[in-house]
């Protein structure tokens, strides 16, 4: 037992004396969370809109003010001709334009008023978001004008976004960031730290000592389990303070599931280290073998149901996919173990499989 603690103490010395490891461990969660939370966002605010008002009057001005006063739009140009409008799009002064036709004021009384929205389709996603937002604002204003009495003949659909009512993208990203960080810290740092002993030759004197291989592996893994759990809590607290995202479900369950996922990732890291002899190789393997699939195929950024069938099949061997389902369930929907036991079982199975494989592959000799 004394040997084991001496080994863990040594591991902590390694971790806290290596700036690169520290940076990955503590710098990356902060950077990723802020990056995904603020910079990479699918929400729209303060989008530039051009206004081509051919029917200046009471109603058209009210409508434009309504657009202005929303958080969504900012009037960036007032144009007076079609050619001018064309120029606004070309010079990127606006991504969307509202065209109010000459007979708008008149038509308003006859319930025949028309409005045209023109969006820059070169970014289809943005165009869709902008036009539907503009549409929503116009509809709302019309309802207000008609005294909330909806025209009998029209049916409007009211959409409500469950679990994420304001469609905040950061809500999506926090579980994703936790997944990436746990995967990266656990798998990459473990595999590198074992590969480093091989590269520097220190593994040779560890072999020529009474230390059992099991103690070496567990001793390598335990510090990262502790640090990863700490990291997960740290991200959750940060998400809660900065982005106001609460955990809707049980925090204990969330941490237990995270522990399970950490163990899965760690066993993957040990497995990687058994096939790589240098830190460089361990880094490359974990980066390309783990990071890219985690980001691309776990459903973090691209929905799995939208992928072609072969990729959907492949996504099933990625542990992060299952953890993402679990963590989203607990954090956003507040579900209990009854709803995520299948995914939990998959992770348990994967961990056991990889631990058995790594123990089989971990050699007690150099060759």
């Amino acid at each position, binding site marked *: 037992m004394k*040997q084991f603690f001496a080994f863990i103490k*040594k591991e902590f010395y390694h971790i806290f004396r290596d700036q690169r490891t520290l940076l990955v461990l503590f710098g990356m969660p902060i950077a990723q969370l802020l990056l995904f939370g603020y910079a990479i966002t699918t929400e729209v605010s303060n989008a530039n809109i051009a206004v081509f008002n051919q029917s200046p009057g009471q109603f058209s001005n009210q409508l434009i003010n309504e657009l202005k006063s929303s958080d969504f739009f900012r009037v960036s140009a007032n144009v007076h001709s079609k050619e001018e409008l064309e120029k606004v799009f070309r010079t990127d002064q606006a991504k969307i334009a509202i065209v109010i036709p000459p007979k708008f004021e008149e038509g308003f009384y006859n319930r025949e008023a028309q409005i045209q929205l023109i969006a820059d389709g070169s970014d289809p996603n943005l165009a869709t978001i902008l036009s539907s937002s503009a549409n929503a604002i116009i509809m709302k204003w019309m309802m207000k004008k008609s005294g909330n009495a909806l025209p009998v003949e029209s049916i409007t659909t009211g959409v409500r976004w469950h679990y994420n009512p304001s469609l905040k993208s950061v809500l999506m990203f926090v579980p994703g960031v936790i997944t990436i960080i746990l995967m990266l810290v656990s798998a990459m740092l473990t595999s590198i730290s074992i590969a480093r002993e091989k590269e*520097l030759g220190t593994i040779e004197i560890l072999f020529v000592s009474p230390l059992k291989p099991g103690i070496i592996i567990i001793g390598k893994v335990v510090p990262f389990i502790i640090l990863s759990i700490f990291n997960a809590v740290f991200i959750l607290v940060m998400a809660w303070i900065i982005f106001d995202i609460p955990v809707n479900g049980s925090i204990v369950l969330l941490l237990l599931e995270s522990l399970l996922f950490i163990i899965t990732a760690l066993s993957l890291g040990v497995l990687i280290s058994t096939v790589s002899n240098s830190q460089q190789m361990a880094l490359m393997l974990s980066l390309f073998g783990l990071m890219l699939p985690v980001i691309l195929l776990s459903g973090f950024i691209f929905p799995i149901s939208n992928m072609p069938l072969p990729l959907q099949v492949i996504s099933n061997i990625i542990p992060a996919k299952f953890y993402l389902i679990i963590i989203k369930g607990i954090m956003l929907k507040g579900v209990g173990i009854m709803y995520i036991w299948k995914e939990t079982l998959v992770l348990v199975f994967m961990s056991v499989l990889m631990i058995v494989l790594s123990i089989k592959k971990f050699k007690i*000799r150099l060759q």
Partner: protein
Amino acid sequence: MLEFKNISKSYEGQEALKDISFDVKKGELFGLIGPDGAGKSTLFRILTTVLLADNGTALFNGHDVVDDYKYVRKNVGYMPGKFSLYQDLSVKENLNFFATIFGTSIKENYDLIKDIYQQLEPFENRRAGALSGGMKQKLALSCALIHKPMVLVLDEPTFGVDAVSRKEFWDMLKSLKAKGVTIIVSTPYMDEASLCDRVALIQKGKILQIDTPKGITDSFEKILYTIKTNKIYESLKVLNDIPEVSNAFSFGQIIHVYAENELNIEKVNNILRENGIEDPKIELGEATIEDCFMDLMVSQNLEEDGVAE
């Protein structure tokens, strides 16, 4: 204490060790002398259980190094050729770590490492990576000794270390030997061979000769001459063309000439002068281990060429 029987090992078709057999007695300081790539490290790795031999067996105090590897790992002190301590740990942390994983403490075995470690104590809190080459070796030796091993296996411990530290290091080995530790050490430096009780000359995975240093130099059957000159390269060319000369090698600023029979010094002198080499000083010399090694190496190479033809 150690027995090697018919050990062979190859890497990807390349034979690193060919049918090696010898033994090391209890309390002996045994040297394995040979150039880089001779197979010294491979042999040590087989002995310390981190490599498996293709053929043959090795016994460590009567225990097989494959079947009973746990016994070996408990009782051997191994210092690999590459500096293999944790560079980011301090001197004291390294020593503490190795003491603990071997189930002992610095205090318990301090008397064994005292002489060595005392020199390191002023730098106790310095990171191992920041130590000088000689200091690193002393630390590595302390770490290999901390659990009071029966046998100390040192792979090129003085490689790349300055002359003063090398001498100090060998003095330490002598005092360890006096304390009853069996030591097997490899080195590419021939001058260190004379400091061992017995040496094995090894080249291309084969043992050329095993004997005491004196036994090896005594067995040198040729006559050796030393020649001092300032034109080493030209002289070597001329000398190797003289039929009576078996071989001529440069040893720094001096040329060693081996001959089966006595040479006519006057005649050699004249030949050198004729070839524009001024004022050569030829004298009879005593053979060193290196001379024996060079001579044996040449005959081994000739043998192999013979087989190839």
